[in-house]
């Protein structure tokens, strides 16, 4: 089945979605208490807590070399039983219900007919609930925004099998290392995101490539929802949330220079999804004092800490601002809460750096390129150019500022609005003066997103503030909703929903052929010989990979048999990927590093070509598995796979 075909994606997505729904909706619903309030609040809370749970559990299981599907299931079942004993979760009566069902069935109270009827009626009522919630234009609009946001991010992943951007191969390999119970394989780096991906992979049972390709766009969608959630909750207006979500979801390419990262799969973008909900729950806890809100905020910031350090800095700065606001304005009432927040923050820092300690304990060094990047400096004073979008954001900040003055006069100051203003202003000042002051490469290149990510929130909040002039709530809501709808329509019209398609480091054809072979052979049954970038990461766990340069160096084409160098086992199925035209994406920046790698690959490819010619001469030809203008896949079948398993 071709990668870009509908049935292929329907199958893969069904697996991915069912895994996602089970792990982040159904299971959390079973173990965490259902709180009063909107279903969406519960969804967000449960999602954040569940991600933390899986990451912590993943770390523990990988470190103890026990990370696998059975262990995860055991962990989940044990947790459920423990919580049931404590009276937590929502299915204390699950077994009781099953009992009742069985007994009713035995007495004829339930027949197949009544069962079908019950199921249909439950389905009908579920459908009815969904449809009636969509009757609310705001919900419908939000759904459209989400779908469009997802579409522009996921389109590339649906059409191109090759993972996006250069980091994807690393993410893919690390996800697979986690699956194989290896931590910090290439050095110490937060593994939270890779554990999240590996857990999704375990339960979705699809090729890790699909999990990788889908998860980036899904992170983008989650961030869109996070921004909507924060904005709509602090303004208590769905329309302003929709405005913020539209700006981030559809207009992001206008805001961020790194917008292509939204369609690639990177830990930083995943961590972004948690920032806004974490802010919201910190504010909510300090305002209302409910412990569950503190725990949610703590879970959010800890997830971020375990996933990406830069995102932790963004979130940590926000948390500090929130604490300061409450410290200054409401110390008497909430000093205990502030202490709890500070304590949870310290705990988060401890947990976030615990993997670092663990890694050092295992004798691992820091991930070389990341630490190098982290410490690299710029030599000139750099001030980022002020863009139109920045000016618009200043205007939004101005609106917020005026509103705050007005509110303080009327003594109706809302702390969440103070936070929006302060965080917005602080993040802009930081990204503007930060590079020149620190000379840090990371701050120059990456911290721009701290500000960029807040621009949609500023847009949503200022939009709301402007319409507060309309006193009548009903009229205001209608106007706001209408205008947010218009903004959405204009955004669609303006962007034409042009998909974000990042550059690739592998050719789609090579990846497509890898998937084709993977579909025909079991793992361990075949060897892949390739010289393209990410060949090892792609085949790791599903096939044995031999780098083309090693293959040429170690195997004599004149030999009749190709055997494993260490075990001397005959390799049953060998697929040689020979690039006639070595692939390079024009969009890939031709840095010295990339250029050097490309030249080396050209040499390796030429060597492999020679080896193939010699093999053909010695053995009277070589089977061609696939061929086009750029790539040939040769197939050497040497024996029966069963030989491999005899002594097991």
């Amino acid at each position: 089945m071709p990668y870009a075909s509908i049935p292929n994606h329907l199958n893969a997505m069904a697996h991915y979605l069912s895994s996602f729904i089970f792990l982040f909706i159904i299971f959390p619903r079973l173990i965490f208490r259902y709180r009063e309030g909107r279903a969406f609040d519960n969804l967000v809370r449960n999602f954040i807590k569940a991600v933390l749970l899986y990451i912590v559990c993943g770390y523990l299981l990988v470190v103890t070399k026990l990370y696998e599907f059975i262990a995860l299931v055991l962990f989940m079942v044990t947790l459920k039983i423990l919580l049931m004993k404590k009276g937590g979760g929502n299915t204390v009566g699950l077994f009781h219900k099953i009992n009742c069902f069985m007994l009713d069935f035995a007495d004829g109270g339930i027949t197949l007919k009544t069962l079908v009827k019950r199921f249909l009626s439950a389905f009908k009522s579920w459908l009815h609930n969904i449809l009636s919630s969509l009757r609310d234009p705001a919900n419908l609009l939000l759904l459209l925004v989400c779908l469009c946001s997802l579409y522009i991010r996921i389109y590339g992943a649906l059409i191109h099998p090759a993972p996006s951007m250069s980091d994807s191969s690393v993410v893919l390999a690390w996800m697979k290392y986690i699956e194989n119970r290896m931590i910090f394989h290439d050095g110490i780096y937060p593994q939270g995101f890779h554990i999240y991906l590996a857990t999704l992979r375990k339960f979705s049972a699809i090729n890790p490539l699909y999990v990788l390709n889908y998860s980036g766009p899904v992170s983008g969608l989650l961030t869109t929802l996070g921004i909507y959630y924060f904005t709509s909750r602090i303004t208590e207006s769905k329309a302003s949330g929709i405005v913020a979500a539209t700006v981030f979801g559809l207009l992001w390419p206008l805001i961020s220079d790194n917008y292509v990262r939204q369609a690639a799969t990177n830990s930083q973008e995943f961590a972004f999804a948690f920032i806004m909900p974490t802010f919201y729950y910190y504010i909510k806890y300090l305002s209302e004092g409910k412990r569950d809100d503190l725990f949610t905020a703590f879970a959010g910031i800890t997830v971020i800490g375990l996933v990406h350090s830069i995102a932790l800095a963004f979130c940590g700065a926000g948390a500090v601002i929130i604490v300061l606001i409450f410290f200054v304005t409401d110390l008497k009432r909430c000093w205990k809460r502030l202490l709890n927040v500070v304590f949870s923050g310290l705990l988060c820092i401890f947990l976030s750096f615990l993997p670092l300690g663990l890694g050092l304990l295992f004798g691992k060094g820091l991930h070389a390129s990341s630490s190098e990047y982290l410490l690299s400096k710029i030599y000139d004073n750099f001030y980022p150019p002020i863009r139109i979008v920045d000016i618009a954001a200043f205007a939004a900040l101005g609106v917020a500022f005026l509103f705050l003055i007005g509110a303080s006069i009327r003594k109706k100051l809302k702390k969440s609005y103070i936070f929006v203003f302060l965080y917005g202003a602080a993040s802009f000042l930081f990204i503007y003066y930060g590079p020149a002051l620190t000379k840090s490469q990371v701050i120059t290149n990456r911290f721009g997103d701290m500000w960029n990510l807040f621009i949609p929130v500023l847009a949503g909040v200022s939009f709301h503030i402007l319409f507060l002039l309309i006193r009548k709530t009903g009229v205001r809501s209608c106007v706001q909703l209408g205008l947010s709808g218009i903004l959405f329509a204009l955004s669609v019209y303006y962007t034409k929903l042009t998909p974000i398609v990042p550059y690739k480091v592998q050719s789609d054809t090579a990846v497509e052929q890898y998937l084709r072979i993977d579909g025909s052979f079991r793992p361990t049954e075949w060897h892949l010989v390739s010289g393209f970038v990410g060949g090892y990461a792609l085949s790791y766990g599903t096939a044995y990979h031999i780098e083309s340069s090693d293959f040429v160096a170690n195997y004599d084409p004149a030999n009749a048999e190709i055997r494993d160098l260490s075990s001397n086992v005959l390799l049953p199925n060998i697929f040689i990927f020979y690039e006639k035209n070595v692939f390079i994406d024009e969009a890939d920046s031709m840095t010295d590093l990339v250029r050097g790698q490309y030249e080396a690959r050209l040499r390796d490819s030429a060597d492999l070509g020679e080896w193939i010619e010699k093999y053909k001469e010695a053995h009277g030809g070589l089977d061609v598995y696939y061929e086009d203008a750029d790539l040939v896949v040769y197939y050497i079948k040497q024996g029966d796979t069963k030989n491999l398993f005899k002594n097991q």
Partner: protein
Amino acid sequence: MSADVIAFNQNTDKFRDLVEEIRAVRTPEDAFEVSAYLESTGWDDDKASTTFGTKDLFELSEQLLKSMGVRHVSVSPFVEADRESGVLGKWKKALRNFLRGIIFAFPMAISVAAMLTVRLSLWSYDELSVEVATSIAIGTILSFMAVGGFTQIIARRGYAYIDQGYFRVAKRTTLYFLYLGVIFCALICLLFIGINLYFSQLPFNMLVVSVLYYFFLCVIWMSVTVMYLLRKEFAFTALLTFGILLVYALFYYARLSIIVSQVISLSIVSAVTWIVLAFFFRLGESKSEKGMDVFMQRKSVMLYTLKPYFIYGFLYFTFLFTDRIMAWSSNGVYMPYIFWFRGQYELGLDFAILILILPMGVCEVLVSDLMEKIDRAMKCGWLEQTKLTKSKSVPYYAKSLALIFLSSVFSTAGITAAIYMIQRSKPFGLSLDMFFNQTTMFVYLFGSISYCFLCVSLTNIVIQFSLSKPDRVVKNLWLSLLANFIVGFVCSRWFSYYWSVIGLLAGTVLLSVLTTMDMLKIMNKVDYYIYAAA
């Protein structure tokens, strides 16, 4: 609670009414009988404490008994029971029970003999590819787990009815459970197929083999249970022999593939088994006394009361196979599927399980003897004071347990010696070379020790079931299963796949300790439990 408070509370009308109420029903033999009566009328520790200020129901019972002024007649149940039969009669009975105990092993013995001589059996073959062996292993394990609960409830309820002479209702109940069993097995099969479709683990041909074996083995296990229920143990042994001969003929003479031969034989054996069962039922019905039957209990009530036994059956078979599941799902260098059969491991356990034969025979003798003593004791008249009963029952139980354990150790030594002797002398060209490797011997060693502990546990469990105390058994089995699972999982992942047998050892040790502790509690209050069970 102080004596003053009790004395004060005794003066209340309520206390006097209660004394009169008990006296009106029957003069109790001891405080435990009073407790049992009170429990049956809705009293519990809380109610006793709040109404009369006693610590618990037992204290209240003792106070009530004192107030009634009942004097005990001291008769030792065990002494009295022993007087009933002569030495020869006792030995005859013991031999009969012993044979009945080991009879379950006949089919197993025939299968082993067939494997050693003609290298095939009804569902195994020496030269199977690992893929096929994996498929069959999955089908077999799944079939045991699916049917385990039903075998227990069929036996539990069926024996109860048949022992009382209600043959027709026993038949109806059994058929109802078989019907439920078939539905349940079909659902499990669908679930298995669904899971496999989702996780894309087994290729289609392996899935088909798994499902076929699963289906036929389910049918066979259920019918075997019914044959045991009808005390036609040898019928299945005969059918199995017939099945093996059929496989032999189809494979060696008709030159069919082993899978086809076995599937044909399994289907024929399954069909014949059901026909034979129908015949036995008809025969039993015609022999049973007319007008002796009662109505079948309301199904929901019946299922509710049998639920612990069903759970026990499921857990027990899951427990037995957990170590295999852990071992075979452990990642190897070449691991194309999530589950991968390892013959060396299976062989070690196959030899180890042989040690169960002797102790199970002994277990049957001891449990029958104990239950008979209890039964007689109940009929003998007044029960002795608790202290005296305890002084007899606990040592008797300890002696029984020691006997079981010793017979297990003796059996292990015998089997081990037999293996070494066969290997040394190679009678009829029989060789056990396959046994002598590190993995198999490791599994055999720890498997044997585990099965010794299992014998002890099973003895305890059978006694507790006889006293209708399944709840503690189920709880203990849950814990032991968890221990088996966790220890097996960790060991197989940290050391090597075959270390999962340590999980079995941990599970069986824990189960034997827990069930023995429970048994000691029961034996300390045996008269109470006898009364409650009655």
